[in-house]
């Protein structure tokens, strides 16, 4: 096993550090070294998106990023969705529109939607579907997820952060 490096990240607003060997995947670093298990692993070929997090402002599949690549960077996971005590409009939208069933794809779905709305605050249905096309869901058939993102888009446009 190669020598471990101490990796420093700012995750969900907090400064954290933990050791990582060079080949440690970011998703394992987040889940195991940092103890944040909201981000999930759903495949081994980078297809499913359950591991999606925001790294330095962009959504990435954390199973395809090495922890060392995130050294010094800023990460947001589902646990860090800004909320001011309540739910983020996206989380609210997913609940109101029944955009989740087993919940396993949900963290990744939320992060991809968050990134989408940051880039495109008023996406059309087609843009939403393309925007979350990197996230697989087996339970919902995506229809209510689209509605959830539309709900959040509307709420955020009205000023609800």
């Amino acid at each position, binding site marked *: 096993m190669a020598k471990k490096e101490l990796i420093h990240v700012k995750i969900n607003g907090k400064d954290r550090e933990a050791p990582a060997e060079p080949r440690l995947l970011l998703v394992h670093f987040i889940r195991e070294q940092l103890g944040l*298990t909201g981000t*999930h692993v759903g495949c081994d070929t980078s297809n499913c998106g359950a591991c999606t997090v925001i790294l330095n402002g962009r959504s990435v599949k954390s199973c395809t990023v090495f922890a060392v690549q995130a050294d010094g960077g800023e990460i947001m996971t589902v*646990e860090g969705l800004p909320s001011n005590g309540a739910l983020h409009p996206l989380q609210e939208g997913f*609940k109101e529109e029944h955009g989740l069933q*087993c919940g396993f794809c*949900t963290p990744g779905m939320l992060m991809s939607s968050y990134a989408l709305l940051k880039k495109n605050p008023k996406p059309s249905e087609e843009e939403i579907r393309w925007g979350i*096309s*990197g996230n697989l869901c087996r339970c*919902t058939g995506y229809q209510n997820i689209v509605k959830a993102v539309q709900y959040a888009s509307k709420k955020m446009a009205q000023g609800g952060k």
Partner: protein
Amino acid sequence: MAAEKTSPGLVEVEKTSPEVSGMGHRMKRKEDSRFLQGRGNYVDDVNLPHMVYGHMVRSPYAHARIKSINAEAAKKLPGVLAIITGEDLAKANLAWMPTLFFDKQMVLATGKVLFQAQEVAFVVAEDRYIAADAAELVEVEYEELPVLVDPYKATDPASPILREDREEKSNHIFHWEVGDKAATDKAFADAAVKSKVHAISQRCHPAPLETCGCVADYNKATERFTIYLTSQAPHAHRTLFALVAGLPEQNIRVVSPDIGGGFGNKVPIYPGYVCAVVASLTLGVPVKWIETRSENLQSTGFARDYHMTAELAADKDGKIKAMRVKTLADHGAFNAAAQPTKFPAGLFSVCTGSYDYPAAFCEVDGVYTNKAPGGIAYRCSFRITEAAYLIERAVDVLALDLKMDPAELRRKNFIQPEKFPYATPLGWTYDSGNYEGALNKALEMVGYKELRKEQEEKRKKGELMGIGISSFTEAVGAGPAHTFDIAGIKMFDSAEIRIHPTGKAICRMGTKSQGQGHETTYAQIVAQELGIPAKDVIVEEGDTDTAPYGLGTYASRSTPTSGAATAMAARKIRDKARKIAAFLLEASEEDLIWEPGKFFVRGAPGKAKTIQEIAFAAYTNIPPGLEAGLEAINYYDPPNLTFPFGTYISVVDIDKGTGEVKVRKFVAVDDCGNVINPMIVEGQIHGGLTEGLAIAFMQEIGYDENGNVSGGTFMDYLVPTAVETPHWDTGLTCTPSPHHPFGAKGVGESPNVGSPAAFVNSVVDALSHLGVKHIDMPITPWKVWNILKEKGLTG
């Protein structure tokens, strides 16, 4: 979306207020909070002190003898704690374990391997990366043997015999038949019209987003074994672990925490679980084993692989007289089918469908091949999707042969509402149905007449457009003790409800949600029956130490069994509540009237006691002669299965240049009787239709002549994204089940059962004017393009 009640007189459900939120309310889910905040507790989230990791070494060959296993290099890797082989397990009589269906399967290979990705050795190490490294260092010497992947060749004398462990040296597992062969043959002999279709329900895989895994934790100090397990049936698994591993059942606790999707994949016991259990027993520390996606697709419970031929006999006006079915079932290397014991082909004999005719005969032969073992019931009652697909394809082929509109042919043959309970020619008694109601609603929603006109116009221009109908009936809620058991355990289910002094409640059931929303829906049942607001009712499932015994959640059985048990337990509580109310109100029990949430004295509505007041009294002012407390448990033995049904209509357009099929519109009208939560029902339909879409157009676990599996990762086994998935238009009709306590039927699987046929029927319909009668799934653009090329139509 209000359901039209089409059969008045059956179980009526009165809607409660929004505050109580009983049945029929679109209550937002209570379980969402934790999932939305990343605070779910899935098996891989379980982290225990001193926990170590397991990784499986797997066979690259489909059929080979194991000459030697050399784990020396692997053992020397720092951080490796143990390497278990089949030989090691054999010493504890654990190298083989029983399957759920009268067969046994290897936990770790001994002697030979029988499918690519079969488990050969289990490595345990301090972290999962080291375990994976060590697995790479295990050297296995194989001697390749000839491979059998074609089920049709299984009984060929030239084919290798796969199972040397069986007494009968044959690849044939079982022959099963049902029905009246003589009557059926006669009906065919006399028939004016005979049509035939050979339809393959291809091998596919449920692929829930969370793979299978466990944390096996043997505590040497307490001698208790806790297994956190991705299990759809925790109690059954506990009993099986006790029987197979010889561990005392009271010392085993199976905990199914949050499960990230099941769809039948998490019903069997997998070798990885057993190895983790053995490792934990040996090492005395918790052992975590989580399979990768590749392992999940290549070695765990596959679905379908039924090769079916259906024939329909009809008169010249289209009245069906009989059905004849012959099916070849490919079970892979071991018969690990998850099915009730009396049914080697599951409930396949519902293949007579929604139609009224007197004679049918069905035979199924199961065979072994060098493929992963199974098959499980993928989001359907056992083998129901295969059956529904077959009859709905057969009816469409008959419509083509008769040059009749497929909707009209179905309408002509539907079992009429007044004929229920209806005894099918293959032995099922359908409880209730109004097939024409669902068909009419679907035809209206999709605009059928206009679509047929459009199709005519398009055909003149050489454009390809198709409309496909599927009017399915499925059988769920297994099932009555007289007929149904899994590995000997009868298929009842249970609910335990306890009301606290302040009128809140906690319930535990023997089922196990993997996303179906039980924490909400069961609470709504309690709310309906007792008037306690659903938000005041906590629902727990999955911990075998606390939940009453049940057979789990699959085959859409939760609402029909545990849902019923919940209602029955609630009614027992209501009976006791009546006694307490009578005592408190100083009235006789007969003079009390129940309204959701309270009893009041007949003629004096002001003299009332709420359920909350009654609950408080149960602990503080107990009537003499009664025990304290307000709780009940019920084990429900359903008198019959329930038979949800529906009509789905798919509208497709085909691109002549690429062969790509686009689903332009899809209408799904479902009837699951009385609905607990319409929002959850819609979600289930959306999800199931998306799985059906994938099966119809995208998915196959295939094997080449050397037994190499294709479709073994998500690169090749395609799951639809939001882009491929069309918009689903859903509707409901309501024909309650007459035997269910609140008239419900269960619905989670209907969309997967009914939709493949709708999709395939629509593509064939788009090409039928060119002479196409059938296309096997998955209907890929490549397949369609080749057909178009053959017909000289490629753009």
